[in-house]
């Protein structure tokens, strides 16, 4: 329970359905602010009080789980480290992998819980064979199956997503109906552990070594300018490069080994293939044949048609029907068959720009 609308309504629905519900909030790592108080957006004292009040209203036990150390080690350090390697990580995927569906999951199971329920917009269905499938939430705009692609059968057998079959508008309406004080709260945005939502400022504060200026180069190797630290740029970025050239230039890759920002024209931007590593298959089985499916390369991207070729236990090759402009190393490549999430991996760096 975060004190927000989604997890509050999830808890209320379960209480209404007759489950014995235990509320848990994770106290995550908090960025230190100058007054010495933590100031990240989740688990502020206000949110903790909100969550506790909701649990009180629902007459369920409520506990705050100390998650600081594991969150700092597995998520915050990873976030910084990946940026240092020149890729743009998706901490929410790693959080579900290491925090929610490992640390929190095991803590819940140790309390003899039958299920871990969360306020995610996704659904779990059991097929006739008894296997579990991860499906998109019914609200396309809110669907969170992308960041849940790390789930395995053992998780889905013991996980509930009570709000996954409702659109967000219904969830807000239910919050009102249940008399939960969060009915009119704003949706949370951005990374939860940032005090101000500005990850570049965060990286400057916590890893200023990676904010070293370096060359802006064309694919040919020609140096045409200077950048202010690789973490300040994202793939596909056009504005703010500070170079003049005969045609518009876009960030197409980074080379952290040479601290180089690689730019190119619109034609250079985009690719029709990628390799994803650290693959998880929600069925627990690696497909033995190549197959056609749809792939999402960002949380907010649309699934697009692709041909998937498993390379080994942990890697896949994805061939898109059409080139995509913003394939970003570090983000998830999540594979769908219609509304069913088959699994996902982390997009590898394109070796063409870093091999030499």
């Amino acid at each position, binding site marked *: 329970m975060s004190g927000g609308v989604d997890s509050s309504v999830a808890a209320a629905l379960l209480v209404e359905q007759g489950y*014995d519900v235990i509320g848990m909030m994770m106290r995550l790592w908090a960025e230190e602010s100058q007054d010495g108080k933590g100031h990240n957006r989740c688990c502020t004292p206000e949110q903790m009080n909100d969550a506790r009040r909701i649990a009180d209203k629902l007459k369920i036990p409520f506990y705050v789980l100390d998650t600081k150390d594991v969150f700092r080690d597995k998520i915050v350090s990873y976030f910084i480290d990946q940026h240092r390697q020149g890729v743009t990580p998706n901490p929410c995927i790693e959080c579900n992998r290491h925090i929610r569906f490992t640390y929190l999951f095991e803590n819940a199971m140790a309390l003899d819980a039958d299920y871990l329920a969360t306020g995610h917009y996704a659904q779990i269905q059991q097929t006739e064979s008894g296997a579990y499938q991860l499906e998109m939430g019914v609200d396309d705009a809110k669907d969170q199956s992308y960041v849940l692609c790390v789930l395995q059968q053992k998780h889905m057998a013991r996980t509930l997503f009570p709000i996954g079959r409702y659109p967000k508008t219904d969830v807000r309406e239910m919050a009102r109906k249940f008399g939960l004080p969060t009915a009119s709260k704003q949706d949370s945005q951005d990374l939860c552990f940032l005090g101000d939502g500005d990850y570049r400022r965060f990286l400057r504060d916590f890893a200023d070594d990676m904010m070293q200026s370096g060359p802006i180069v064309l694919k040919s190797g020609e140096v045409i300018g200077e950048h202010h630290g690789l973490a300040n740029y994202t793939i596909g970025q056009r504005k703010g490069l500070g170079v003049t050239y005969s045609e518009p230039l876009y960030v197409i890759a980074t080379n952290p080994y040479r601290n180089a920002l690689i730019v190119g024209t619109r034609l250079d931007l985009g690719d029709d293939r990628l390799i994803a590593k650290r693959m998880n298959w929600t069925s627990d089985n690696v497909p033995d044949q190549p197959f056609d499916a749809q792939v999402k390369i960002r949380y907010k991207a649309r699934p697009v048609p692709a041909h998937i070729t498993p390379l080994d236990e942990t890697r896949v090759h994805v061939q898109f029907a059409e080139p995509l402009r913003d394939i970003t190393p570090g983000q998830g490549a999540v594979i769908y068959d219609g509304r069913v999430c088959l699994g996902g991996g982390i997009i590898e760096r394109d070796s063409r720009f870093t091999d030499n």
Partner: protein
Amino acid sequence: MVSHRNVYLDYSATTPTDPRVLEKMLPYFTDEFGNTSSAHSYGRRAEDAIETARETIATLMNCRASEIIFTSGGSESDNLAIRGAAWSRLDVGNHLVTTPVEHSAVTRTVSQLVAFSDFDSAIVPVDKTASVDVEELLDNCNERTTLVSIIYANNEVGTTADMPRIAAQLRERGILFHTDAVQSAGQMTLDVQALGVDLLSISAHKFYGPKGVGALYCRDGINLAPSQTGGSHEAGRRAGTLNTPAIVGMAEALRLAYEERDERLAHYTRLRDMLKDGILEKVSDCQITGHPVHRLPSHISFVFEDVDSTRLLMHLDLMGISASGASACKTGNAEPSSVLLAMGYAPELAIGSLRLTVGQTTTEEDVAYAIEGIAAAVEKVRKLKRIVS
């Protein structure tokens, strides 16, 4: 997972109000609602109730009624004692001495005086049982020392201090001696002459009285600058209309505690020892914290290896067992208790603390259930730790 038995073992946190106490209080909410400051009959009857309560408490504490000041509870009593005595003795000195195992109402009052005005302080180290060595205490006092505050019975680890011995030494040096007796009241003697203290704080809800009321004993002749200013209530030492029902309740609760002292203490000691023996037998890698002998009869405390108390308490709560860690962990901020650290425990051991305190209605069945539950919960928490870290 849903418990079918509720076992409350957190009587050091608070106790229920004794129904006999409540009955004495009730008329003062409704019919006898007068303000003691009023010059009419309602005021006189309220004043009579308050002064009778004051005399009752004074008799039990072997002092004069004028030496009892009513407050809103233990924290206010500590604040008034320390701030009031420190301020009024600024002509004598500005040095305050405490220990690292005091209640935060004492430590934060002292640290605020140091931070915002011209005071400094010394903190006397304690040994592994949370006891202060008298010689070491005296070494930390100097010619500017005006006040020493040492807890009578420690809330976290139950250790009781040798009050008369400390008091004799301080009196010889003209240093005032305050004690937080919040945990002791109802179990240990509050005879201020025997204890030798100059200032002593109590709080009613720790001995089956109501919440929101306490008292400070202040030896005649000691000036207290009021820490709460306003009207001239309580001889100008504590402003604010007196809480008649609560004060009447506190006096009755303390009277009953003395009247039934022998039975209560025998009951506490027997059940506490059952708990202690049962847990030491059933749970591996655990040790008692605090003094093995000189401790509150109702109180036993432990540290468990490879356990964090936040998680342990969560498991116990779901079994219906209400206990306490050493420190407040409602916020999920699993910090080791500063008291245990000051006693020399390593942080990774201090984080696994558990406090169990028995009360009048605790039964042998409760204790047996708790021992089984704690043993099972410790096992689960240890197993979980092996999985997730």
